[in-house]
């Protein structure tokens, strides 16, 4: 797996509080990676460090093989759609594009105007008069016009209505189909991520719980329901992700490459949302004490 981002023991401290601590993570190049995890897991801090907006207190990080924000050329390689999609309220849509053209080393003006046209955004409109969806689309346009190697999106659709959300993701996927770029997108909306991402990372307390190709993950996780059984009695090729038991019944979520032969279980597939929740609800160290990496 070639990586576009490599973080090793990355940490960010504010006074005594660690916003991110000892985070080690790889982002695959050429993929759309979904970053999920509970609030406070460190997602935004990690993305801000990757974007070069924050500098880390500890550890190392390389984005496209270099330290974030180490040069103007490095800044040009990374496009960012920050949380709450910040804009300049008093500037018009066109002025945002002009500013983008002046401030960026790489700037594809034709792409930017083509997107405005397709979105039917009025260039003369003041940015604070735009709807939430239009505003997010404007910020995405600015990020895409840089022609970045890595596009970072932090909760881009959280505050949008379902239609605006779908339109935003349509535009994003169209851009991914057109340009060779890697994308990382953090979101709580796993159903959206399931459509747009081909790789997923679950981050809890700065640690990667699971990282892998979405389809491979879905193909190797099962829900087993049957009479109560001790968790230690599972075959060695079945890795327990989540276990719940009543006095009569056990419900396990397991990962395994092999088919499940034991006839006592009723076996079903799980969706990405259940899979993510199962990993998020694990105790901190996880049953095996190490993150799961699934081969591409």
């Amino acid at each position: 797996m070639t990586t576009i981002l490599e973080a090793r023991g990355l940490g960010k401290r504010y006074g005594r509080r660690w916003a991110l601590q000892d985070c080690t993570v790889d982002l695959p190049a050429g993929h759309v990676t979904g970053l999920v995890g509970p609030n406070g897991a460190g997602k935004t801090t990690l993305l801000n460090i990757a974007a070069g907006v924050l500098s880390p207190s500890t550890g190392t990080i390389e984005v496209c093989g270099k330290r974030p924000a180490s040069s103007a050329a490095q800044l040009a390689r990374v496009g960012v759609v920050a949380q709450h999609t910040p804009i300049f309220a008093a500037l018009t849509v066109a002025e945002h594009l002009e500013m983008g053209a002046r401030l960026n080393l790489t700037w594809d003006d034709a792409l930017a105007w083509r997107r405005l046209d397709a979105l039917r955004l009025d260039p003369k409109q003041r940015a604070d008069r735009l709807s939430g969806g239009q505003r997010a689309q404007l910020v995405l346009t600015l990020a895409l016009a840089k022609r970045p190697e890595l596009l970072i999106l932090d909760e881009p659709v959280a505050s949008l209505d379902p239609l605006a959300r779908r339109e935003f993701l349509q535009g994003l996927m169209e851009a991914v189909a057109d340009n060779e770029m890697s994308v990382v997108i953090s979101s709580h909306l796993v159903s959206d991520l399931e459509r747009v991402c081909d790789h997923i990372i679950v981050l809890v307390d700065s640690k990667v719980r699971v990282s892998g190709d979405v389809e491979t993950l879905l193909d190797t996780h099962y829900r087993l329901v049957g009479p109560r059984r001790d968790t230690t009695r599972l075959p060695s090729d079945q890795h327990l992700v989540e276990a719940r038991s009543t006095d009569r019944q056990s419900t396990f979520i397991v990962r395994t490459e092999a088919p499940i032969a034991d006839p006592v279980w009723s076996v079903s597939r799980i969706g990405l949302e259940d899979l993510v929740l199962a990993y998020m609800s694990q105790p901190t160290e996880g049953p095996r004490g190490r993150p799961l990496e699934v081969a591409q």
Partner: protein
Amino acid sequence: MIDFWLDSRSGVAPYLQVVQQVRHAFRLGMLREGDQLPTVKDVVASLAINPNTVLKAYRELEHEGLVKPRPGVGTFVTRSLPDDMIEIYRPLRRELESWLVKARRAGLDHESIEALVASTFRAEQDVA
């Protein structure tokens, strides 16, 4: 040209849904030799799905010999459903219909019929 849709609650992987929809359209005669499939960009722009999902589906269909990509142009259907397939389907369908009547008379409801068909199908596949 056909259109794809995505059922996010079906539990079927998105790429497989695309594959199945192409096969389905082919079997129903909606796709014939020479017809073009929607471009990857069109599909991702309408469904908001990952381009790799569509590429994977089209590769699978190519592997089956149903479609072929023409670089820079698009992906095209390379076969037509043989006319005699329709002749083969018709009597099989009639048999199925009379079987369904029998199952209903025996008191089976929709769910029981589906379960019976699915389990018989699985058992037969295991033998084969």
